[in-house]
């Protein structure tokens, strides 16, 4: 009977032989896979580079297109915002990192210049509106999403720029001040009322005590400068107005 594997010394030799050939086969296979991967990667790089250079202007100009592009990047795990220094070839190629930083500077510009009147809190819509005005027609449109992204790039500066959700609408805060729960309620009610808040409103709609309403409003008025006083209110005599939820031109 001729048993596979057999017995005796020859069997050891044969086993060693087959191990060796398996090893070399696996090495060849991985080598092939690696080189295939390299080819794929370089193809991907070159097509991405091609895409980026052909569509660079459109990416910068068209918020819709930029959004789709950024979604695609997230899906394939590439960060188009990796700054000009960290990002290497591809941020350079696209110039999107610079674009984002530039927008960041403009956001700071708008936030700082309106701080005196809104206490460092601005509605997202208003911010986008003012940014578009600042950038002019040639600057291209800016979307809320762009602003959110740019604010993230501002984070290392530690200036406290943050996007807040107040009653389902976005606001951008540019001061390192905590917006407490009560203030969020006041802001949200103020928006429904076109900017005007009175103690009675907070007592009725938020179910607060008069003391709590007064404290919240006084804090916003005196400490944070988030609202303005009106002593000629027809109904209540004294009313508070929140400029960051109102819209007007300078």
């Amino acid at each position: 009977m001729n048993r596979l594997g057999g017995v005796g010394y020859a069997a050891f030799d044969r086993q060693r032989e087959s191990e060796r050939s398996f090893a070399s086969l696996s090495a060849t296979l991985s080598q092939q896979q690696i080189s295939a991967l390299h080819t794929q990667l370089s193809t991907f790089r070159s097509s991405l580079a091609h895409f980026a250079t052909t569509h660079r202007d459109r990416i910068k100009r068209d918020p819709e297109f930029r959004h789709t592009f950024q979604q695609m990047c997230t899906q394939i795990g590439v960060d188009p915002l990796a700054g000009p220094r960290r990002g290497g070839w591809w941020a350079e190629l696209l110039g999107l990192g610079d674009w984002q930083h530039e927008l960041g500077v403009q956001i700071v510009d708008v936030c700082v210049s309106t701080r005196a009147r809104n206490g460092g809190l601005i509605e997202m819509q208003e911010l986008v509106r003012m940014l578009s005005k600042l950038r002019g027609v040639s600057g291209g449109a800016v979307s809320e999403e762009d602003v959110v992204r740019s604010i993230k790039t501002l984070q290392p500066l530690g200036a406290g720029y943050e996007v807040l959700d107040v009653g389902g609408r976005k606001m951008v805060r540019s001061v390192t001040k905590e917006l407490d729960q009560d203030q969020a309620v006041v802001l949200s009610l103020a928006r429904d009322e076109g900017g005007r808040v009175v103690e009675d409103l907070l007592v009725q709609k938020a179910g607060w005590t008069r003391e709590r309403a007064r404290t919240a409003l006084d804090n916003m008025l005196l400490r944070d400068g988030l609202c303005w006083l009106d002593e000629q209110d027809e109904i209540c005599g004294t009313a508070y107005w929140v400029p960051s939820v109102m819209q007007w031109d300078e």
Partner: protein
Amino acid sequence: MARLTPTGYLLPSIHSVPPFFTEQPNPTTQATLTEQWTRLILSYARHRRLFFIRIEDAETTGGDWDEVLRNEQINRRVMPAHLSSLLATLVAKNLAVYEPPKQTRSVLLFWRSPEEWGETLHEWATSTGQLNTILTFYEIEDPPVPSPLSGIPTALLRKAIASLSKTGRAQIIGAADGEGVRLFAGTGK
């Protein structure tokens, strides 16, 4: 929204914001709004060539300042005490002086500085060939042909002439029927 008044002045949209008519307890906010008020007052004064603003303008209606000190649409007005502090700010910033002096209910507005008025006077005298002659204050304030200086209050004219005197381009002359000034050519340098 910005609003055009019957006299053709474009009011800024902040003029339709109710708390604009109240003095603010928050110093930062107050500074911002005061800045807006002083700018508005001076620009309206320039538009209508108004030289004075008085506390009475906030106390009674029918004056020159109603369009600015009141907003009937939102039923707000500047209270006399508020106006008083706005006038104090204008004076502190050298954009106005209390006139007559030693009271705080009336100011003379500098929508052009006394130096600029001096230059205006000199240019007018030069272009109308009235250098080196004696001009009475009355001839300057109410010339037969309207000039950029028509209606200028004597107090302001005096300051304008004083500024020209510093550069040797004007000299006050006492005359029997009032005062006069003689203007000289010069670059002002």
